[in-house]
C-alpha cells in the first residue's frame, strides 16, 4: 500500500497527470469545437443553437415510428431545399439539423434489413464458387459473417441524441496520452533503481515477488485511473459542447458508427467495453515497458526498444490498408485494440492460419493472455536481483569527450548545458519543432467563388495604383453587368413560358446569376477601394492593391485562430524552459555556492535572462518564419513594400509604414510580450524550491488564463498573456479588439516590469535570498 501511495503521490507523476488532462482538454477543444468559433462560416453561438434545435427535433421524432419519421423528415428536408431555391428565408441551422436527423432516421429505418442484406451479399459470393472454396478463409469468413450478423435481427435500434456519443467514440487522442501517463508511471517506479534503493528493498521480507506483484497492480491501477479521468473529461466535454448522450439503454447499434457491431449490447455497455479495451492495452504497454526497463541495465536501450515498438505498431495501424496482405499487423495491434471506433464499429474477421476469428473476441483474449504472461513474468523476475542503472557505453564516452572538450569557464555555456542537456530541454525543443512543422505545412485551400475571382483580379492589379487599373476594373464591372443582363433575359424566357419549363436549367441559371453578381461585387469593391487608394497615393503614401486574403491570414483577423494556437504553444515552450532556469539551482541546493561567487548574482541574472530570451527569440523566429512560408506557399505574398494603409485594417495609420514594417512591428511586439513573460516566469522560478513547483505555478499564472479564455471564460481575456504573444494585428480602429489587446498587454507589462525589478533587487542588490534555501543551508 505504501509503495502504491509513494508512486501515486509522486509530484512528477501528479504534474504529468495534470498535463495529460490539460492537453487532452485542449486537443479535444481544438479538434472538435474551435472550428465553430470561426464566424466567417458559422453563426455566433452556433454549437449551442444547433444543440438546442437538435434536441428539439429529436424530441419530436423520438416518439414516432422510425419509418414514418424517416419519411416525414426526408420530405421536410426536400421542402426546405425548395424554399431555398425559391429564395425564401430558411434557418440554416434548422435545415442542417433536419438533414442530420433525416439521415439518422434513414439509417435506423434501414437497420432492420441489415441481416437480409448480409445474407444477400453472402449468397452472391457463394454463387461465385471460385471465390469461396470449401476449407478456405474466404468461405469461413463469409459463413462467420452471416452467423455473426444473425444477432442483428433481434436488435431494436432507437432514435436519440447521438452527437455527443459520436464525438466520444471518434476522439482518439486520449489513447496516446494514456501511453504517456503509463510510461511516466513506470519511470516513477523505476526511480527506486536510480536511487539505489533496491539494495534496501531487495533485502526486506516482502521486497521481492510481493513488491513485483504490487508493481503490476500499480500499473493496472494507474491505467484504470487515468482512463477513468480521461473518459470523464471527454464525457464532460462532449456533454458541454454536443448535448445529451440520450438514453444509455438503447442498443449500441442505434449510433451509425456502430452499425457493424455484432454484439447485443446497449450504449452504456459499449462505453464500458471501450474503456476495458483501453485499460487492458495501456496496462499491457506499461507491463512491457517495465519488463524492458527493469531487465536492461542501460535505460536508453529500453527506451529505444519500446519507442521502436510503439512507432512500428502505430505505423502498422495507420499505414497498412485494410485490403493489404499484411492487414493482420494492422488489426492485431495495440492501437487497433485501443481504438473504440475500430473495435466496435468496424467488422473484421482475422485470418489466423486460414480460420476466421472475430476481431473483438480474438484481440480481447490475446491481450488478456499477454497481460497475464507479462505480469507473470514481472512477478517471477521479482526474485531476480536488481541492479543500478547506468549510462550506455556510447553515452558515457560522449559525456567524457564532451567534458574534455568543454573545459571552458564561460558561465553562459555552462548554463546552456545545464538547461538544455541537464534538464533535457532539447527534447522540448525537438517536440516544439515537430509540432510547429506539422502545424505549418502547406495545404490546399478551398476558395469560394468570390475569393477565386478576387485572387484572379489581384494577379493583374496588385501593386501600385494606376489609371489603367481603375479603367480595367470599370470595364470588368460593365462586363459582369452585361453577362448578368444576358443571363437574366434567358431566365426571363423560362419564366414567361418562351422556353419549355426546365427545373434544373432554371436552377442553374439562377445560380449563375448569383455567381455573376458575386463577381461584379468583387470588381465593384476593388474599384471603390481603388478610389481610396488613389487618394492615399495622391497624399504621398505608397498605396496600392495588396492581396487582402494573404495579409488577413498573416497579420489580420483570418489568422487569429492559427495565431492563438501558435501563441499557446510558444508560451508553453517559453514557460517550460524559463521555469527551470533558476529552480534547478534551488532544487540542487546550489544557491549558496553560486551567490557567494564573484559572478553569481547580477551577471548570472543577465546570463540566465539572456539564455531564456535567446531560446524564446529562436522559437518565435522559427515560428514566425514557418508561418510566413506556409502562407506564402498557400496564398503567395507580394507587394510587401506598399504602405500599410493599402490594407483596410491599417487605413487609419497616419505614418507611412510599409506592410513589411507592420509585420516587423508585430514580430517585435510578440518578442516584447515574450520578454515580459520570461521576467515573470524567472521570478517564479527564482522563488521556487524545485522544478515541479516552478512549472506548476508558472503554468497556472501564465498558461491557464489563456487556456480558460479559449475554453470559453471570456473574463480571462483581460489577464491572458496569450493574447499578447499571439498578436496578429496592431488592432488599429477596432475598439473591441484594442481593449482585448491593450488591457492584457498593460497587465503583462506591469507584471513583467515588477517581476524584473524584483529579480534585479534580489540578485544584484544584497537582499535576502529565497527563505527556503536558507532553511536548506541551515
Amino acid at each position, binding site marked *: 500500500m505504501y509503495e502504491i501511495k509513494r508512486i501515486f503521490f509522486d509530484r512528477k507523476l501528479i504534474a504529468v497527470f495534470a498535463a495529460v488532462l490539460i492537453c487532452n482538454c485542449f486537443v479535444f477543444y481544438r479538434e472538435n469545437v474551435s472550428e465553430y468559433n470561426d464566424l466567417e462560416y458559422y453563426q455566433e453561438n452556433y454549437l449551442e443553437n444547433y444543440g438546442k434545435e437538435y434536441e428539439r427535433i429529436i424530441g419530436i421524432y423520438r416518439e414516432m415510428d422510425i419509418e414514418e419519421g424517416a419519411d416525414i423528415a426526408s420530405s421536410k428536408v426536400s421542402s426546405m431545399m425548395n424554399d431555398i431555391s425559391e429564395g425564401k428565408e430558411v434557418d440554416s441551422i434548422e435545415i442542417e439539423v433536419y438533414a442530420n436527423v433525416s439521415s439518422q432516421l434513414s439509417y435506423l429505418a434501414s437497420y432492420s434489413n441489415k441481416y437480409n442484406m448480409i445474407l444477400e451479399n453472402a449468397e452472391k459470393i457463394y454463387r461465385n464458387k471460385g471465390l469461396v472454396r470449401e476449407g478456405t478463409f474466404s468461405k469461413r469468413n463469409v459463413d462467420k459473417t452471416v452467423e455473426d450478423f444473425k444477432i442483428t435481427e433481434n436488435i431494436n435500434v432507437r432514435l436519440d441524441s447521438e452527437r455527443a456519443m459520436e464525438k466520444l467514440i471518434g476522439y482518439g487522442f486520449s489513447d496516446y496520452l494514456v501511453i504517456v501517463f503509463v510510461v511516466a508511471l513506470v519511470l516513477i517506479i523505476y526511480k527506486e533503481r536510480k536511487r539505489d534503493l533496491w539494495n534496501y528493498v531487495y533485502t526486506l521480507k516482502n521486497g521481492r515477488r510481493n513488491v513485483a506483484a504490487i508493481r503490476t497492480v500499480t500499473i493496472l491501477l494507474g491505467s484504470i485511473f487515468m482512463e477513468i479521468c480521461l473518459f470523464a473529461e471527454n464525457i464532460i466535454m462532449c456533454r458541454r459542447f454536443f448535448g445529451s448522450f440520450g438514453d444509455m439503454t438503447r442498443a449500441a447499434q442505434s449510433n451509425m458508427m456502430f452499425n457493424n457491431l455484432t454484439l447485443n449490447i446497449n450504449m452504456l455497455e459499449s462505453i464500458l467495453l471501450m474503456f476495458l479495451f483501453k485499460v487492458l492495452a495501456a496496462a499491457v504497454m506499461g507491463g512491457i515497458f517495465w519488463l524492458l526497463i527493469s531487465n536492461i541495465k542501460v535505460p536508453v536501450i529500453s527506451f529505444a526498444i519500446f519507442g521502436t515498438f510503439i512507432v512500428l505498431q502505430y505505423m502498422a495501424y495507420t499505414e497498412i490498408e485494410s485490403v493489404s496482405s499484411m492487414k493482420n499487423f494492422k488489426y492485431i495491434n495495440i492501437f487497433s485494440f485501443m481504438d473504440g471506433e475500430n473495435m466496435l464499429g468496424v467488422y473484421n474477421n482475422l485470418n489466423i492460419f486460414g480460420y476466421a476469428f472475430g476481431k473483438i473476441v480474438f484481440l480481447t483474449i490475446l491481450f488478456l493472455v499477454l497481460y497475464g504472461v507479462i505480469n507473470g513474468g514481472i512477478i517471477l523476475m521479482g526474485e531476480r536481483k536488481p541492479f543500478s542503472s547506468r549510462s550506455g557505453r556510447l553515452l558515457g564516452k560522449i559525456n567524457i569527450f564532451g567534458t574534455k572538450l568543454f573545459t571552458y569557464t564561460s558561465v553562459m555555456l555552462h548554463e546552456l548545458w545545464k538547461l538544455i542537456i541537464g534538464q533535457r530541454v532539447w527534447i522540448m525543443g525537438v517536440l516544439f519543432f515537430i509540432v510547429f512543422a506539422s502545424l505549418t505545412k502547406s495545404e490546399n485551400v478551398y476558395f469560394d467563388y468570390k475569393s477565386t475571382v478576387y485572387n484572379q483580379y489581384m494577379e493583374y492589379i496588385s501593386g501600385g495604383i494606376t489609371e489603367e487599373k481603375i479603367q480595367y476594373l470599370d470595364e470588368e464591372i460593365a462586363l459582369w453587368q452585361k453577362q448578368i443582363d444576358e443571363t437574366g433575359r434567358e431566365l426571363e424566357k423560362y419564366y414567361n413560358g418562351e422556353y419549355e419549363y426546365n427545373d434544373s436549367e432554371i436552377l442553374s441559371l439562377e445560380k449563375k446569376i448569383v455567381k455573376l453578381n458575386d463577381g461584379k461585387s468583387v470588381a465593384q469593391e476593388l474599384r471603390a477601394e481603388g478610389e481610396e487608394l488613389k487618394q492615399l497615393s495622391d497624399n504621398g503614401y505608397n498605396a496600392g492593391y495588396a492581396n487582402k486574403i494573404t495579409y488577413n491570414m498573416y497579420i489580420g483577423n483570418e489568422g487569429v485562430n492559427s495565431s492563438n494556437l501558435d501563441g499557446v504553444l510558444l508560451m508553453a515552450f517559453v514557460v517550460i524552459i524559463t521555469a527551470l532556469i533558476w529552480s534547478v539551482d534551488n532544487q*540542487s541546493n546550489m544557491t*549558496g*555556492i553560486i*551567490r*557567494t561567487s564573484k559572478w553569481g*548574482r547580477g551577471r548570472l541574472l543577465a546570463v540566465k535572462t539572456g539564455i531564456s530570451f535567446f531560446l524564446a527569440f529562436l522559437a518565435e523566429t522559427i515560428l514566425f518564419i514557418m508561418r510566413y512560408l506556409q502562407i506564402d506557399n498557400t496564398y503567395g505574398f507580394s507587394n510587401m513594400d506598399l504602405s500599410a494603409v493599402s490594407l483596410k485594417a491599417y487605413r487609419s495609420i497616419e505614418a507611412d509604414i510599409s506592410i513589411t514594417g507592420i509585420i516587423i512591428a508585430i514580430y517585435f511586439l510578440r518578442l516584447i510580450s515574450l520578454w515580459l513573460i520570461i521576467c515573470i516566469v524567472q521570478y517564479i522560478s527564482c522563488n521556487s524550491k524545485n522544478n515541479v513547483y516552478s512549472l506548476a505555478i508558472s503554468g497556472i499564472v501564465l498558461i491557464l488564463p489563456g487556456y480558460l479564455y479559449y475554453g470559453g471564460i471570456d473574463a480571462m481575456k483581460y489577464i491572458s498573456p496569450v493574447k499578447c504573444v499571439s498578436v496578429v494585428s496592431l488592432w488599429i480602429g477596432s475598439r473591441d479588439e484594442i481593449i482585448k489587446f491593450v488591457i492584457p498587454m498593460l497587465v503583462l507589462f506591469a507584471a513583467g516590469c515588477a517581476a524584473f525589478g524584483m529579480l534585479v533587487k534580489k540578485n544584484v542588490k544584497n537582499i535576502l535570498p529565497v527563505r527556503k534555501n536558507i532553511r536548506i543551508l541551515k
Partner: protein
Amino acid sequence: MELVFEHLTKEYGNNKALNDFNACMKEGIYGILGPNGSGKSTLMNCITDNIKRTSGKILFNGEEILSMGSRFRQCVGFMPQQQGFYDNFTAYRFLFYIAGLKGIKRKAAKEQIDELLEIVGLESEKNRKLGGYSGGMRQRILLASALLGNPSIVIMDEPTAGLDPEERIRTRNFISKIAQDRIVLLATHVVSDIECIANQVIMLKKGKLIGQNTPYELMDSVKDKIYERVCSSGEIEMYQKKYKVGNIFQRQNGMVLRIVADEKPEEFEPVTGDVSLEDVYLYYLKGRE
C-alpha cells in the same frame, strides 16, 4: 588581513538568530562551536551575504563587505553543508562551472582544478557524473570548489561530514595547511576536528558569543571541572538527570561515567590531564541558560 564583526545582529521576527556579535579574525582557523540553532549558519550566511543582516557591520580590511560587492565575493570560498548537486555534471565540468562563476580565466582554472583534484584525491574520478558520487566524494568536490580562485577567506560548514576516518584526517591536515595565509571559518559538530586544527574557538549559543579563545586555553579553563566514576546502568540514568553528562566508557571494571560540574560531587573523582574540547563544549554550551 582582518575580518571584523561589529554588533552583528540578525533577527527572524522576534527570534534573534545572531545577537550583537563582535569579533575580529585574522589569518588562521576559527572553529565555530555551538548547538543546533545557535547561529553558526546565520553567521556564515551573513559573511557570504546570502542573508540580509538586521544591523551591525562586517568589515574586510576596514571596508564594509556590502559595499565591496563582487570584490569581496572574489575573496571568499564557501563550502556549504553536504547537499545536492547538478547530478548530470561531471566533477570536472562542475569545477569549470564554479571557476566561471568565480571569474577565473580558462587556463588558470584548468591548472587550479587539476591541482585541487589531485589534492582531494579525485583526479581519476573527474569524468564521472556527480550523481554517482558517494557522500565523501561530494564533500571533497565541494572543498575543491571552495578553494578555487585561491580565496583569502574560506568558510566551511561541516567539511568533514560523511568522510571516513582516513579522509577526515587528510582533509583536516589539508585545511590546516591552507590556513597559513587565510582566514578559515570552520563550523562543525565534530568537536575533535576543531580541537585538532583550530587556532581559535568561537562559542555561540542562542545567537550570542559565549566565548572566544584558543582550544588550549578553553580546555585549561575546565580542567578542574571534570569528574568520573564507575557506575551501574541504573545509576547512569540517575546521574544523567542530575549532572551534565559527557561520555560513558566501557572499561574492564564496568561503565565509567564522565561529567562536568563546577563543584565536585561526592561520589565522583576528579580527572586530571585528560581534558578534551568536548568537555569544554559540555561545560559552556550544554544546558547553561
